[in-house]
Structures are given as C-alpha cells and as structure tokens.
C-alpha cells in the first residue's frame, strides 16, 4: 500500500538512489550491526567505503568532490539507513557539518575540508553541548581566545556523536567579549594537529550502543584563526540556527525509517507467534495496535515528504522543521513502545531488534534540541 520511500520523493532519481542505498547498506551495514554494538563504534572503513560509493558527499557541490545533489538525496540515504535498524553510524553528522562548510565556509575552507568529508577520510563531529548546559547556547563556556593569529581553546564538551573517531570537529566556542548566545563562533579543529585535545571515554548509553559518544577536552589547543567558520567570529549562533532546520528534519527522517522497520518486524512476528492456538496477529488488540502504528508511519511519511520538498526549494522554515523533529521522534517512541509490547518478553531481550529499536529511539526526543524546545519554537511562529 505505501511506497517504501516517502510519498514526497517523487523523482525517479530518488528512487534509484534509494535502491543503491539499500544495496550498499545491506552489504556494509546490516551484517555488522551486532558487532558494532559490542565494540561501541562502527568500523573506520565503513566511512571510506561509503565515501567511495558516493553516499557521504551526495549533496556536497561537485567542485569539492561531492555529487552536487539536493539534500533530499541525503535524506533518502538516512531513511534507508534507519530502516536497517542500525543506530551506530553517525553519518548524519557528516552531512550536517558538510553543510555548515558549504553554506558559510570560505573558498579555502571548502577546498580544505569538503573533499575529505565526501571521501570519508575526514569524519565530522559537532561539539556543542557542555556538561551542565543542554540546548542553551547562552551558557556555552568553552573559550577560543585570539592570540597572535591563533585561537587558543579551553573547555570541554560532552555527549559528542562520533566522539571517538571524528577528526574534524566543528566546535561551538565563545570568541568575543559579547555575552550570551551572540558571542559564540564555530571553530574547526583538525584533531591530528591539535596538541591539548583529548577524548574522554566512550560513554555508556541506554541505547545506540554502536555509536561512539564521548566527552571532548580542550586544553590550550591552538588552531589558526582561519579555522573560524567563514573566517570571522561571532556568527555561530546564526550559523547554527540556520542549519538546524536540516538537522531537525533529519531526525524526523530517521524516525520514519525506524518506524517502518519496526512496524514491518512486528507485523511479521505477530503473524508467526501463536497464542492460545491463534496467531497473535489475529487478536483484536494486536490488530488495533498495529493499525495505529502503521497509520502513524504513513501520516509522518507524507509530512516528511512535504518537508523535503520545501527543503530542496529552500522554503522549509524553522517551525515546520521543529514539527518534523518533535512529532517524528514522539511517534517513533510511541510506535517503539507499542511494538515492543507486542513482542512480550522477547521485546525486552537485548538481542531482538525491536528491543534495540526501543532503547535507540529514546534519544531522538532529546538531541537536536529537546522536544520542549521545538514546541517553544513552534509557539513563537504562532505569535505573529
């Protein structure tokens, strides 16, 4: 009944790209998920393989080693990735950082970093959150002081995705005298060339076990002033805000992929499982719950499709992206909960994909801006 891709993806190219994505993921991701969960991080080669196959740089301009496609192609890939059930590979961050550079980077910065991001030679991280400050940019205390044409960085960051593997860190730091959110800048740190930079332990999380999430420490780390995104400081807040639309929509895209995979798995399981000599699927409660879950996925699919169209047209506003983020993650968590319930005891066993999907889903309501923050942004759009 439903298309395998969001209804909004109507071009033939998207469909072809989805096919290619699935093929790549079936080979390079699905067979390894369990191992990555055990090792707490994906394989380094995954990045370069994906780079070679063109999946990392699809929306990076061709001039910088990318595919020059609209971002909806990245969304296709992330949707298909989420459908595999893997939550270890922090590949969406790569796209987010690439677009910071594409949008605001100087020519030199684009040439320096984008080809590596496209090839997988570079792995990106965004270092925003600090211990004790969540979504609150005003409270950033990591400092990058200008000293002889260099920025001297001191501070620490936490909950950083790709924290163990990233070698290009997009750091949110305070550069000027200005207090509050407006005094922050984005500074790129190439980790191979940054004495004083240190990674903390791979943090133990409730879910997303295959993803390396870490604290990062900066102690008198020096980078050239030219590592300031766009070449000058104080624009971090605006830069972050403008790109958050993409980041937030991605969370909705991932939610949709996860939901499709959960509904499919649960429908299969309940058809196999016998209870009191009937299929679990045949009980009215099961049918209602599955119908509800399926509806949530289909309705979200249409919304994500519309958002992607607007994204490519450049008309996706922050409030709508916030809706995709909070609604998508909310629906994902509800569907995860209901599906797990239908698996009974098995749903609680860590080896079952549905159990992992449940634990993985929870983070989506928090990162990328807590859902409460999303609602606040939507409310602001109503106050006009």
């Amino acid at each position: 009944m439903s298309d395998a891709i969001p209804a909004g993806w109507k071009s033939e190219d998207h469909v072809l790209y989805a096919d290619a994505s699935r093929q790549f993921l079936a080979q390079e991701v699905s067979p390894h998920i369990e191992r990555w969960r055990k090792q707490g991080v994906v394989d380094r080669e995954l990045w370069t393989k994906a780079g070679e196959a063109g999946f990392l740089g699809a929306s990076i301009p061709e001039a910088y080693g990318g595919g020059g496609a609209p971002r909806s192609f990245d969304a296709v890939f992330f949707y298909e990735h989420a459908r595999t059930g893997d939550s270890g590979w922090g590949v969406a961050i790569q796209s987010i950082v690439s677009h910071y550079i594409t949008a605001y980077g100087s020519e030199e910065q684009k040439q320096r970093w984008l080809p590596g991001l496209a090839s997988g030679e570079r792995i990106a991280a965004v270092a925003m959150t600090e211990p004790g400050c969540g979504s609150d940019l005003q409270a950033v205390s990591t400092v990058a002081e200008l000293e002889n044409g260099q920025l001297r960085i001191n501070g620490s960051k936490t909950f950083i995705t790709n924290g163990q593997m990233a070698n290009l860190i997009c750091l949110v730091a305070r550069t000027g005298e200005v207090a509050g959110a407006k005094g922050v800048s984005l500074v790129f740190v190439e980790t191979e060339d940054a004495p004083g930079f240190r990674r903390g332990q791979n943090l133990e999380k409730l879910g997303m076990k295959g993803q390396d999430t870490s604290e990062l420490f900066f102690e008198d780390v020096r980078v050239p002033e030219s590592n300031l995104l766009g070449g000058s400081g104080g624009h971090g807040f605006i830069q972050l805000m403008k790109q958050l639309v993409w980041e937030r929509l991605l969370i909705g895209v991932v939610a949709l992929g996860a939901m499709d995979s959960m509904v499919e798995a649960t429908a299969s399981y309940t058809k196999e499982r016998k209870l009191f000599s009937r299929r679990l699927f045949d009980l009215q409660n099961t049918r209602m719950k599955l119908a509800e879950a399926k509806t949530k996925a289909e309705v979200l699919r249409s919304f994500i499709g519309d958002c992607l169209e607007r994204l490519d047209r450049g008309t996706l506003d922050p409030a709508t992206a916030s809706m995709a983020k909070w609604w998508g993650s909310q629906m994902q968590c509800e569907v995860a909960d209901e599906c797990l319930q239908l698996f009974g005891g098995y749903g609680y066993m860590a080896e079952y994909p549905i159990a992992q999907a449940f634990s993985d889903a929870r983070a989506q309501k928090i990162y990328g801006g807590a859902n409460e923050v999303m609602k606040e942004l939507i409310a602001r759009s109503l106050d006009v």
Partner: protein
Amino acid sequence: MTTDLYASSEHEAFRATIRKFTEQELRPRAREFDEAGRIDKVLFKKMGALGMLGLRYDPEYGGAGLDWSFSAVMHEELGRSDNAGATLAVSVHTEMSTPSLAQFGSEELKRQYLIPAIAGETVSAVAVTEPDAGSDVSAIKTRAVRDGDDWVINGSKMYITNAANADWLCLLVVTDPDAGYSGFSQIIVPTDLPGVRCDLLDKIGLWGSDTGQFYFDDVRVPVSNTIGDVGRGFQQQMMQFQDERLVACISTLAGAELLWEETKKWTEERILFGKPLSKMQNTQFKMAEMWAQMLAAKELGLAAVRALVAGEDATKTITAAKVFTSNVAIDVATACLQLHGGYGLMKESMAGRAYVDMRVATIGGGSDETMLQYLAKQLGF
C-alpha cells in the same frame, strides 16, 4: 492518610530496619550489581539474618509469622534500592519461588529447602514461563516422567530471575499431558544437578538482575521433591499470583517515587535559559501530574494490602493495580528522563536506568494484555 495500616511502632521499627539495609547495602552498590549482572549472593544471608526472607512464614521454619502489611513495608523500602534488578531478586525469592513450598510442601521438603531459604543460605527461583508459552501458563511443555522414585525432566524454561544465583528452582512441569489442568506439578530442582544448564540473557534494562534460560536434559530428581500433590501444580502456582503482582506494584511504585524525588532535585539544580528547570511551568505541571498518578497508584496498592490483611479477596484490586501502576511507572520514567535531557540517556543516570528498567513492568508478572483480559473476565465479560 495511611495511618490505619502502618501506624504501629512495630511497622515503624521494621521500616527503619529495611530502609537502613537498603541505604547501606543496596544503594551504594547498585552500579556494581549492574556490572556483575546480579546481586551479591552474600546479601541473601544478611537479609536472612535480619528476618526479611520469611516475613509471613511459620516461625517453625524461621519465618516471622507477620501479616501482609509488613511485606508491603519491606517492598516499599527495597523498591528504593536504585536497582530494580536487586529488588526483583529478593521478591522472586520471597514471593514467587518459596510460597508454594511453605504452603503445600511436605515437612521433609520444608526442612530441607524452606529453612535454608528463609535463612538466606540458599537462593531460589521460580521456573514457569517457556519460550513458546508466555502468558498462557497452561501451554507449557516441560515434561517430568516418573521412573521409579524419580522424575526425569526434559524441557526448557525462559526468563528465569535469579538464574545465576539460584541454588534451586521451583519448577512447574507437565506430569500428565492428558489430564488438562490436573496434569501439572511443582517440583524442586537443585540447579547443580547433571543435565541442568543455564544461559544468561542480555536485556535492555534490569541489568542488576540475572535472567536466564534453563535447559533440562534428562534431569533426575526424587519424586519426593514434588511440592504438594502430584497434579496440583497449576492450581498451586496460580494461588500465589496475587501476592507476587501486588509486590511488583509496590516495589515498582517505590522505584518511581525515588526517581521522582531525585528528578525534583535535578530540576532545582539544573539552570536552563537563566533559571532553574524547576521554575518552568512545564516542569511543574509534569511533576505535579506524576505525583497525582503515583498517589493514585499508591492508594490502589494500599487498598489491596488492607484487604489482604483483613483476609478479604483482593483479586480485582490487585489486577487493576498491576496494570495501572505499571503504566504509571513507565510514564514517570519517560517524563523524568526527558527532564534530565542528554544526561538521562547515560547508563549512569538514575532516570535512564529507570526508563529501561521500568519498561518491563507491563510485560513481566502478567502483561497488560493478560491483566486486562483477566480483569474483564472478573468483571463479568
């Protein structure tokens, strides 16, 4: 408000004892139990010494001969262990694997198994659920065939709590496949017998609890290890469901209350956009709403305890409490984690662990679906 039930100085003294035990022996080691995947078996001896493991049992076998109100107090306090797995380990031993033995076991069997269990010298587990028979107890297939004075047991049991620590199992088996509900028996099976094997299971939460799958391959135990009469196993097993469900309500709710208290502190300390999280209306509404829900669950549980103490039937109340409390606890954990933000996703945070621990509440000990079906039946549908 609950003065009628817990007012006596005995209750207060008993509560103080359990609270001290929980705060000194359990909470400080909560993370250690997670790492180990089970609680320290030595704790059972300590609990035995404190008289915690046979509260309602006959003093003849080391029990305390108290009524249900003391059990309620104990599980209210143990529920604050900050480790739902640890809490569960105790309640399985006291409310699930020993009750049939205490009520129906032969004198010999009680001397051999109940006395050391109450003393905490041995740890027990109950083995009912099977891989292909979840909520439907009557569909179990593990089989005991009589061979002279022995049973020969073959089959498998799933989701067994205390799997690693248990010295013996209270095992429900089919002894006569043609006898319907009269074809089941409860048999005590030591876990160190030849042919008994156990695989531990990896769960998304309850990390402090050793959950396992047992396999029985021609395991021989004397027929005298049968609890009560051969063929009465199903009925004996069913009788204890009310107690174990009520205990689940009480300890789950206690865990939720502890989490609420800790979350309150967190919101007071956490500064967001220039003011404490606790001063935001959303926080206050959510916290107040949770409190109201928890109080309703509390009163529901107390109503059941009151009925049991008075010797009345509390089946409907307990069934209602089970489904209600489980959902409240999950909602509380979900909301408290959200208030913790990113930190709530870390394994070290109480909110995070509670979120994955509590999730089992609507599945274990009678799933929501089973409870609702059962309650509907009792209500005349």
